[in-house]
């Protein structure tokens, strides 16, 4: 199982330029809306054509501008799960699934595969309903059934949970993951949610403005995002411009502080990031006086807002996030953060 993508496409002022190789089961493309992640999927599926580049799936070239190869989407055998599921509105659930099988001449085979899929996706009793009568979760299962009955070699999943309400979203993710694992093919999942990316994807590419700014194993990307955009998209709340002082020291002028880092500081450093969970009143390193600037209560966590004593007044306060039971009774006057939790960011 392998997928190689290296494509360029210009859309007005926007330039999409993505390249990644993956052999992982589920690869995530994480980015804000409009960053080109859906367009990348559409190019892999063949419903959009890149200006140049190549796409190779399991050794078969799907697209190669240099060699003039551009397989039709019908020839690629790549499944696409659309954001709004794109079920055919005038057909029943059963007929929606059967359209994928219309080339199968043997009615008995068609029927058997339809039954298998309905059972696998737990759609019993919904066969005669139309898409408008389905709940979000049911529509998602019908779209999956319609895609999988065709036995695609690669699954492209475009924000599969964005059409669902949040509690459904959390409930369905484990099932979804089991299903993808049991199907046993590669998948590329597009999402703007870092939680979804973290839950579902073993490999991650973070995209911004049409470019991949960081890619690697998901946990590695979250632990060391390296670029400012990747830090932001993986949920780092405290980011400020910074410059290198020496091999282990950086200076953040807007916060009026110097920080010690556990890793060597790169020469092209442009910013640092401090994740909101990692501050500690008793931390020995990077200690500085703080002034409290407010608080936000979440269902299970507290967010305390603070400013460093020397911080530029025009910059926003920092976030310190903690579980509810860890909130100190008396707010400390000094906060520190371990050197390994200072994220060193480049462009």
């Amino acid at each position, binding site marked *: 199982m392998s997928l190689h993508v290296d494509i360029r496409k210009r859309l007005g002022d926007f330039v999409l330029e993505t390249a990644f190789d993956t052999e992982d089961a589920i690869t995530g493309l994480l980015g804000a809306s409009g960053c080109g992640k859906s367009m990348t999927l559409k190019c892999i*599926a063949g419903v959009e054509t890149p200006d140049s580049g190549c796409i190779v799936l399991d050794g078969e070239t799907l697209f190669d501008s240099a060699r003039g190869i551009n397989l039709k989407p019908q020839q690629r055998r790549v499944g696409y799960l659309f954001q709004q599921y794109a079920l*055919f509105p005038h057909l029943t659930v059963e007929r929606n699934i059967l359209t994928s099988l219309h080339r199968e001449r043997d009615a008995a085979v068609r029927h058997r595969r339809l039954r298998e899929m309905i059972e696998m996706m737990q759609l019993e009793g919904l066969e005669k309903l139309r898409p408008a009568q389905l709940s979000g979760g049911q529509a998602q299962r019908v779209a999956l059934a319609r895609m999988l009955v065709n036995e695609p070699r690669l699954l492209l999943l475009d924000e599969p949970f964005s059409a669902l309400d949040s509690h459904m979203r959390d409930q369905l993710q484990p099932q979804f993951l089991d299903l993808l694992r049991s199907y046993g093919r590669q998948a590329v999942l597009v999402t703007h949610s870092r939680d979804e990316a973290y839950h579902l994807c073993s490999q991650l590419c973070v995209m911004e403005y049409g470019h991949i700014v960081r890619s690697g194993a998901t946990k590695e990307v979250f632990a060391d995002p390296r670029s400012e955009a990747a830090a932001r998209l993986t949920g780092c709340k405290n980011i400020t411009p910074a410059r290198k002082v020496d091999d282990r020291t950086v200076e953040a002028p807007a916060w009026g502080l110097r920080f010690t880092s556990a890793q060597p500081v790169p020469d092209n450093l442009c910013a640092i990031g401090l994740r909101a969970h990692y501050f500690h009143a008793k931390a020995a390193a990077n200690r500085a006086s703080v002034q409290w600037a407010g608080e936000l209560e979440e269902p299970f966590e507290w967010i305390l807002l603070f400013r460093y004593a020397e911080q530029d007044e025009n910059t926003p306060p920092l976030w310190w996030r903690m579980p509810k039971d860890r909130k100190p009774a008396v707010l400390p006057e000094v906060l520190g953060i371990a050197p390994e939790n200072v994220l060193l960011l480049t462009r």
Partner: protein
Amino acid sequence: MDWYPLFNSLRIAALSSIIVFFTGIAAAYYSVRLPRLLKGVLDVVLTLPLVLPPTVVGYFLLLLFGSRRPLGIALEQIGVKFVMTWYGGVIAAAVVAFPLLYRTARGAFEAFDQTLAQAGQTLGLSNTYIFWRIRMPACRQGIIAGVVLAFARALGEYGATSMLIGYTPGKTATISTTVYQLWRTGDDYHAFLWVLVNLAISAAVLLTVNLLERRQKEVHRV
């Protein structure tokens, strides 16, 4: 009473509706994917017959198919004559009714969710299958409305028809040209009868549309 005008009108309206169905849908389908400038120009040209006086359309048709014009002469060589024949009426009615179908179909195609066609492609469905089995059914309300409007317009066509095929009882007479002819010659009684016939047909068409729409809504509600 001679029922020929009724028969002739229905035959002209039916045939021209069929022509307009295919040409209008093809024009709508392809114009949606043209570059903007070309689309704008084409749209003006294709919609002109709707806003021009029908007599002007008839004048253009005579310019094209007249027996001394190159195209008219060429057609006559192969035995086709659109001037003063009932099938010339089909051409006249089709040209006048065309924009009604073209515009409603184009509106429906523009509102069509492109991801449905893309989904069909990734599922391995041919583009022809997608067009007839997914795009057309999804747009059917707009297209049915267009067909009915085009049929009604073709049935009531007077100006271009009378220019191109005139009025010959038993040959080119339609309901609308008959009404005018009877009234002009002072036969108010028969003119009135034909008016009633026309009213009955129009009412039947509108009733059919309403019934179709209601059934459609029920299907979607179930």
